[in-house]
């Protein structure tokens, strides 16, 4: 499903939900911008293939976690903007807890300082 440089396919698929929800929690965005952001954030380690992002976004939308709207950008071009819903924020909290739980367990095993939840 994804082309990756460093992450395995399964890990990219699993992390796409918290990544997308977190990005949209910071403000509405559209597909192209989201991909650029992910590439920037991960320093190129997470590489999402452009066309495959949309099925994930649409699934989140169908689950009611995000919403979308066609809007005209300042350039005059129309884009489909996505924004997070109330359910999405709740889901993000759960995701955050779970990912940090995994993270902290690994940190303890590897004797790295854990992050507070």
């Amino acid at each position: 499903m994804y082309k990756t440089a460093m992450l395995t396919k399964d890990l990219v698929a699993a992390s796409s939900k918290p990544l997308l929800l977190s990005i949209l929690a910071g403000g509405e965005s559209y597909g192209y911008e989201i991909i650029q952001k992910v590439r920037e954030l991960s320093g190129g380690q997470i590489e999402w293939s452009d066309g495959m992002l949309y099925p994930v976004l649409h699934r989140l939308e169908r689950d009611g976690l995000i919403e979308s709207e066609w809007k005209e950008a300042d350039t005059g071009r129309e884009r489909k903007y996505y924004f997070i819903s109330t359910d999405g924020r709740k889901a993000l909290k759960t995701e955050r807890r779970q990912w940090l739980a995994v993270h902290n367990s690994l940190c303890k095993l590897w004797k790295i300082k854990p992050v507070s939840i």
Partner: protein
Amino acid sequence: MAGRSQLPVQIMENQTRFDLNAAVENWRNELAAQPNLASDDRRELETHLRDAIAGFQQRGLNDEESFWLARKRVGQPPQLGEEFTKTNPAVVWRERIFWAALILLAIRLWSGISSMLWAIFQTAVTTPYFLNNYHSVSPFPDWVRFYLPLPSNIDLYDLLFSPSSRMVFNFLSLLPVLGIAWLLSRGRLSKSFSWMQFFFQSRRRFLFISVTLFLFYLLLLVNSLLRYESQPNDPSSSLIIVVNIMSLLYPATLIAVIAWLLPPQNQKTPKRA
């Protein structure tokens, strides 16, 4: 020196003048050929492609390089179609049913209008002949009529009012509707038909307009049916009323199906791309 170095560049540009708009248009048609992509998905992918092209252009690549790189990034149309169906096959089917219902409704409307035009044509063509017969006034002098390849009055009448010519006319009148539907599905004509989006922007607006038109037609129908009823000895009048009312069920069902598939709130419908 400067003049010499410019020359090959100019030649190359002339040889491979790349038309970005045409390339995007081709890409869009290729995408439209994917049966699994809903039009909203296609529109979204196209905005992405255009953003990606603009991104590469900003980095100093020319139109052609930007287009091919962006195209590669977005992915192959068949692959895209496959991935999109996996996530939501229902959307595609909703869209298919919507278009089928819309085309059936358009055919129903057009067949009503065209049979009216046909009736007008029949009377317009045959009336001068009858006038001619009854009042012996010819539209043309005798010597003109002798040379004109017009059939005799009775022949023309039989020809125009025969069931077979009626069938031929019905078939021919369907062709423009099917032709327009085909062109629309290929993404042509989308500009000339964009005004039609107005009717489909929200469920409420579509229902309001179509129900108003429907009631208006019902009024005309009831009016003409009342004339039948004024002949109380005609046993077929009640049957005619029933048949006419029943024939309205078909377009009414289609309108209901289309309204059901439209988005409930006033939101922008996808451009037919």
